[in-house]
């Protein structure tokens, strides 16, 4: 489902003397349907950079990233947008929303964008928020005022609202208590069971052992480069 070949990346800082910093070369990776692959490597080794390239958020320098038949490296912006809407989900560490939009709408939005009827989208959002223990009295409020853990759970609910065939998870269990961590791990297991290909970063070792089928050390993709 996700296939990365010979991926490379460097940053050129034009306003700091035009210095070019190579951060990745020769990255190879494959995630099949129903499989969860965890990225490991010390902080700064390039786990997040790789995830961002897969999502099309960072431009790759070379190589290919094929997801469901589309090469993200060479795709047009609108092809990436269509991929993100229907195929590739992303749970980031931070929730970025328009202030004032109620939590229920924030979570239902990915479904509304896909054309799911509003009552059905909201029912699914309500179901996920309830599972993630966000009290119903908060659903009508904007999540911008919520605690860090609550925002993280809203973000997870939003990321799991649509059954994406491929999912990127960046520290999905960080800042969660044991009960909510368990809910998130179950959501990940359910996604795998329905055939989703998942690529994730998990600093939580227990979570990693439970949901990851394989681990890939990104240090191997940066060896010999300035870091």
């Amino acid at each position, binding site marked *: 489902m996700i296939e990365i070949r010979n991926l490379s990346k460097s940053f050129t800082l034009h306003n700091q003397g035009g210095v070019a910093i190579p951060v990745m070369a020769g990255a190879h990776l494959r995630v099949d349907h129903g499989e969860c692959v965890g990225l490991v490597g010390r902080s700064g080794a390039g786990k997040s950079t790789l995830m961002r390239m897969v999502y099309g958020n960072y*431009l790759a320098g070379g190589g290919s990233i094929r997801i*469901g038949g589309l090469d993200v490296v060479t795709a047009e912006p*609108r092809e990436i947008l*269509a991929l993100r*809407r229907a195929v590739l989900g992303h749970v980031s560490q931070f929730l970025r929303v328009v202030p004032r*939009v109620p939590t229920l709408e924030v979570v239902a939005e990915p479904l509304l964008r*896909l054309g799911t009827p509003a009552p059905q989208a909201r029912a699914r959002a309500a179901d996920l928020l309830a599972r993630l223990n966000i009290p119903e009295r908060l659903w009508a409020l904007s999540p911008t005022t919520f605690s860090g853990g609550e925002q993280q759970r809203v973000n997870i609910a939003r990321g799991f609202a649509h059954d994406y065939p491929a999912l990127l998870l960046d520290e999905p269990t960080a800042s969660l208590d044991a009960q909510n961590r368990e809910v998130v791990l179950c959501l990940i297991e359910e996604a795998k069971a329905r055939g989703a290909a998942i690529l994730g970063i998990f600093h939580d070792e227990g979570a990693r052992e439970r949901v990851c089928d394989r681990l890939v050390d990104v240090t191997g993709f940066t060896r010999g480069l300035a870091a």
Partner: protein
Amino acid sequence: MTLMQNAITAAPLLSVQGLTKRYGARIGCAGVGFDLYPGEVLGIVGESGSGKSTLLSCLAGHQRPDEGRILFDGADVLAFSEAERRRLLRGDWAYVHQNPRDGLRMGVSAGGNVGERLMAVGARNYAAIRESATDWLGRVEIAADRIDDRPSAFSGGMQQRLQIARNLVTGPRLVFMDEPTGGLDVSVQARLLDLLRGLVRDLGLSVVIVTHDLAVVRLLADRLMVMKSGRVVECGLTDQVLDDPQHAYTQLLVSSVLQV
């Protein structure tokens, strides 16, 4: 996968090629080209004098470019007769000004402002016009009992929402926006952004939005075009351009934003 295929096989709604506008020897904008697809929001950013407003006014038919082509739904807009151009500006196209006073008739009631645009495209039934105006005031969150008030009695945020209602009542397919949240308080901006996002999604509008506010484009625009000295220096997915800018000028622009 069908949704994805639909999105990819659709033809562009607006196709711009080699658009150039000079003011004597000075360049307003030069060699600008892009395709805008149905339901897509394109943000144009750059500092004052970068040519973004010149570009928008050429696109929207307020100024005639010196060179280039503008195709709307396949038709060459610059070859339109004056009558055809007016019909386009009243129906399929809409323009939201930065200052609502430029887009509203301040001496006419709120309902009249909305109804007027409907009448310009041929609506004649008073009851139907008033009903449509009331419906649109509701959609932009203006209470029905304000329908007979003049916009001069409205706050800046309300005036801007009224301008949006006046523009969208005729069901345009393409909306041009010039700094639509400029000059508004931050809390009022948020409300307007939320409203715009909902309208764009529910009505499938295509939008070209000019702003200097990177936070606004991050939330509203699918794609971003960065302009400097009349030329496009970088374009791409909004979050990619903002998070991994390639051009020196974009890097400077992004790194100059204060973090809050």
